[in-house]
């Protein structure tokens, strides 16, 4: 191995898959080998069987749909508010001076700690679930977008001025297009965090969703179902991440050449 030397695509895929297999192997070894009680950790086979039951008998697809809708809904609401605000903060320093101190404070407030309050305010319905995702995402997105927009290359802004761009044209024609790829990257990152908030939101006061199913399984001591639920979350995360990356590559071909 040489430092910083690139690795070929097939070898990269093989190595990446290798770790998954190693992980599965170890899991199988400790469960099938009898080193761990089935009560505490189900085997890969049991987890798969539990998953089958979940889909066929307990309408797990409905739970997944519920959770995806909550994540996407809360996240989109947050992005819809946070991206424009972040762009304005990055572009206009007085706007930044007004919002930045509060948002820097608010983004350290743990979204999960708001759950009891939100239940009080919004009940245990969908509004409360969306609010948790929204609160967990919105401040993070604002800060990240503001930093990205504020880092727009000065010489590009100056070039636009000498070409006759004025006022808000700088925001529209320089800052937004320059920031767009990094803003999308930031959204991809925050969407990943949103997935952790939704499960927390569903662990408390929910009648559906992947988190609710995991909570139910705990009462039945069904570790197979719990593990299957966790793995499904991981897989959905992997797929959305992949889709996001593919979308960014398509949208911003100029940035990835």
């Amino acid at each position: 191995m040489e430092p910083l030397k690139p690795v070929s695509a097939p070898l990269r895929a093989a190595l990446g898959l290798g770790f998954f297999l190693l992980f599965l192997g170890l899991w199988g070894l400790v469960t099938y080998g009898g080193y761990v009680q089935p009560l505490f950790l189900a085997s890969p086979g049991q987890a798969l069987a539990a998953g089958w039951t979940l889909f066929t008998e307990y309408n797990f697809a409905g739970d997944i749909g519920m959770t995806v809708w909550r994540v996407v809904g809360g996240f989109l609401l947050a992005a819809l508010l946070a991206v424009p605000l972040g762009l304005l903060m990055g572009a206009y320093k007085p706007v930044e001076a007004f919002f930045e101190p509060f948002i820097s404070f608010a983004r350290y407030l743990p979204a999960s700690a708001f759950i009891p309050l939100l239940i009080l305010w919004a009940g245990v319905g969908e509004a409360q679930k969306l609010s948790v995702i929204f609160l967990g995402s919105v401040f993070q997105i604002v800060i990240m977008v503001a930093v990205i927009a504020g880092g727009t290359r000065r010489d590009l802004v100056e070039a636009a001025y000498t070409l006759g761009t004025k006022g808000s044209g700088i925001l529209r024609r320089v800052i937004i297009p320059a920031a767009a790829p990094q803003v999308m990257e930031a959204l991809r990152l925050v969407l990943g965090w949103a997935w952790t908030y939704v499960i927390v939101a569903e662990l408390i006061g929910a009648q559906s969703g992947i988190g609710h199913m995991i909570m139910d399984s705990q009462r039945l001591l069904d570790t197979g179902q719990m593990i299957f639920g966790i793995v499904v979350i991981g897989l959905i995360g992997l797929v959305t991440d992949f889709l996001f990356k593919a979308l960014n590559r398509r949208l911003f071909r100029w940035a990835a050449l």
Partner: protein
Amino acid sequence: MALSVRGLTRTFPGQGGNAPTLALQPTDLDVAPGEFVSILGPSGCGKSTLLRIVAGLDRPTGGSVTLNGRRVSGPGPDRGMVFQSYTLFPWLTVEQNIRFGLRERKLPEAEMRETAARFIARTGLRGFENHWPRQLSGGMQQRTALARALANDPEILLLDEPFGALDHQTRELMQELLLEVWGSDRPEARKTVLFVTHDIDEAIFLANRVLVMSARPGRVKAEVAVPLPYPRDWTVKTAPEFGALKARLMGEIREEVRKAALG
């Protein structure tokens, strides 16, 4: 005069308790319509500051800049600029970059297309219209930047060491290209140009007139007319008159470089 600069000064406020820096001593400067003036000076002499004030990107502490009778108070499309750094918009293709200023003026599509095509041809960019800036060499990027500035039909072209980051050979080609698009063989069509450089050969080769700036705080310490006829090509650089001008300018600037180096 196309451009008149009167008593222009610039002082940068001191940072962290340091004394303020005087970057530009009271400077006067006149550029006639269609004239090509080089400003030659050591690094940090304030020549870029002077150009940025003319562009409206920096504000003077005192004095004034007048372009064709109008006082300059901020940046505008009447003063086109090419920077030393590569400032093409990376999300736009070569052609879209060249159209940037035309779109700002809301010209009809046909006129934009026609103008862009003309400057693409003139700067040797045919076949690269749909390339992204990232796909271009430094020389090609600066050609595009030049075409983008010219397509906007500015009253004066401000060039801030536009070839400073290019290798020597590319640089010489670009100098010839610049003279061509400036209109070295068509005196009636020439743009007014203010060109900042620290390269003596480049300053002489391009300009009607070379202004030498002193070390910081900058002022115009000498003015040398370049009587070499246009059109010029690279062979001019080996002519005896060129050598004599170069010797004179080297004498002027050596002293300033030494002062700048000793602080």
